[in-house]
């Protein structure tokens, strides 16, 4: 068996490996290289050492964007997962039309970010219109606008993962608990929650990395207005890269820092939630 696997290894892995190298690995290395250079187009670069990194960190907008992103990520991670889990509980109770509801809740996830951003901009501005203001009036408006939109988009997807997790819980454990006289809340806390921990790991990871990297929705909904107070990291990198001549390297340096932060946070989060998982 083992030998068999080894024999076919190249056939199965090579195509993906080549695609991965061309489309990800080489550009990634090139990106890291470019963060140490000054360049206009990616094919002619001049080495400048750490200058870009110093410029990136002495830039107030970058730290502002970092804070905004962290706040947004925490809030949306919590809200998306709570709502998704509640919906999943509700929709595993054999209510009539369960499948229809599941489909409906999942649908927003199929809409692209830019379209979604503009639609929500219209909706939210339509509501704020009554008060004579728009989303750009205060940074808080943009922040909560983004949170609402993120929830609307992500809840359905996370819900599906939670539903799968809940349905995987063996019926006999539930029945045994009931016979032992456990209340609904006790079952939820002592049985359901521990047994869906693998789903929680996945969901937390997905919401975290998606919120951290949010770009199109941010661009379409607020584009950073007012005065870049609602700019998230990815958008800030984009603005730096294209905003003024000679800043491409700084944008690239920010992008590398961004990658490191996301990777670090993701590893820590994975480790913590993994520990809480229970084998079935």
């Amino acid at each position, binding site marked *: 068996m083992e030998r068999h696997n080894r024999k076919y290894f190249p056939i199965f892995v090579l195509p993906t490996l080549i695609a991965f190298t061309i489309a990800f690995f080489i550009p990634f290395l090139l990106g890291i290289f470019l963060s140490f250079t000054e360049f206009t187009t990616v094919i002619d670069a001049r080495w400048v050492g750490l200058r870009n990194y110093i410029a990136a960190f002495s830039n107030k907008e970058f730290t502002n964007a970092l804070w905004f992103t962290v706040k947004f990520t925490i809030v949306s991670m919590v809200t998306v997962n709570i709502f998704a889990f509640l919906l999943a509980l509700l929709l595993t109770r054999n209510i009539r039309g369960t499948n229809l509801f599941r489909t409906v809740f999942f649908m927003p996830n199929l809409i692209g970010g830019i379209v979604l951003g503009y639609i929500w901009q219209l909706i939210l501005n339509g509501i704020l219109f009554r008060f004579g203001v728009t989303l750009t009036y205060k940074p808080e408006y943009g922040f909560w606008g983004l949170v609402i939109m993120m929830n609307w988009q992500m809840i359905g997807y996370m819900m599906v993962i939670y539903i799968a997790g809940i349905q995987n819980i063996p019926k006999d454990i539930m029945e045994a608990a009931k016979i032992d006289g456990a209340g609904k809340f006790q079952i939820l806390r002592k049985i359901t929650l521990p047994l869906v921990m693998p789903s929680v790991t996945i969901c937390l990871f997905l919401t975290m990395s998606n919120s951290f990297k949010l770009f199109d929705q941010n661009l379409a909904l607020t584009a950073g*207005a007012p005065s870049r107070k609602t700019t998230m990291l990815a958008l800030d990198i984009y603005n730096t890269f294209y905003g003024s*001549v000679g800043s491409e390297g700084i944008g690239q340096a920010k992008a590398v820092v961004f990658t490191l932060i996301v990777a670090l946070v993701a*590893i820590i989060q994975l480790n913590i939630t993994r520990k809480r998982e229970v084998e079935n």
Partner: protein
Amino acid sequence: MKKTSKLLAILCALMLMAASLTACSGEGKTKDTGSTPEKKTEETNTDKKKEDTSDSASEDVDEVDEIYFLNFKPEIAEVYNQISADYEAETGIKVKVVTAASGTYEQTLKSEVAKSDPPTIFQINGPVGYEAWKDYCLDLKDTDFYSYLSDKSLAVTSGDGVYGIPYVVEGYGIIYNNAIMEKYFALEDKATDVTSMDQVNNFATLKSVVEDMTAHADDLGIKGVFASTSLGAGEQWRWQTHLANMPLFYEFKDNTAYDNSVLAGLAADEIQFTYADNFRNIFDLYTNNSSTQKGLLGSKSVNDSMAEFALGQAAMVQNGNWAWSQINDVAGNVVAAEDIKFLPIYTGVSGEEKQGLCVGTENYFAINSKVSPAKQQASIEFLEWLFSSEKGKDYVTNQLGFIAPFTTFNDDEKPTDPLAREVLTWMEKDVESVAWTFAAFPSEEFKNYFGDALLEYVQDSKTWDDVVTIVKDSWKSERAK
């Protein structure tokens, strides 16, 4: 086994995440650099005398079957496709026209130039754009195309070389709907004694007329005198670029050490923003007499305000001659071509009775110096054909609607659209046109800071003093980059 699978899972998850990050981190191209032409082509070509280039290149031109033009103006992209088809029918050379979406020209150019088939003709926006693209701009000093230029001082030059050739002159100011103005002048209870637009030649008069019109808005059937001051993201250029031109033009004009305001602006490491109050005058007039209340301006686009003007809901809008097609194309347009006129932007500067429209250009053709000499030659020939052959000129005046600054155009070959004709009329009047000083603005970022500050000023979260400080500070910091 369990341990490895866990590790594998983590690894997979990381890869998944990392892979989705590529869009942000890896602007990289996988194409190897070998496909870009070597530096020597550029050197040999620029050193050659003109006859030399055309002689040796004329044979090569036959081998060129495609040139690539990266177009800046989405509103006329269709016309370029027709031109390209015609040119191919005539000469057999295919002109590939790619149009960058509005506001994304720099991005598009940056990524297109890095490809193996880069644009051969692109455009720069003036001296600042030349700074960014100087490694890619061919010296056009010896071309016929440059010799066609009626005013050689319009070109972007550096040392002896000519690197950008303007192909259109444009003008902007306050566009007004004369039908509504006539209606106002005919009102019996109007509070001013102005009876025709000719009498409006300074800010004080403009202000009194506009404010009285606002008081009579219902009689005139308008929602506001000025169409919305669009301050949505990406929709602020009429204020942070065009209107910002006014105070800075006057500031740099005061600096007599330089020949013109653009040169003075390029040399300025800092600005005083002396005419900030003049900017505030007109900006407040726009927003206080607008068809939209101040809090909602952050969601308005340029299209919105042009539509308001075209539908007769507003009497005035600040924009340039390029806006005619936009006004004309609005469904339900009520503005007649003969009613649409230009007024200079008066801001309360002394002696502004002699001020004209803002006339200039930020559209300069440049030829990519890093493609083969044959392609360069073919590109120049295409531009020469477009601006000197009968067919090409017909396209330029009648379909592209350019006021072309070339000697190859006769007087009867001027554009027919009403706003372009208004620009020409104003240029011939005894007034001084305002130069496009914004060519000297340090960067796009500077303009964005300015625009952001204006939005917050309108929304009352910043005072005017804050705006002035931001403008001065961001000029300084952006220029220092």
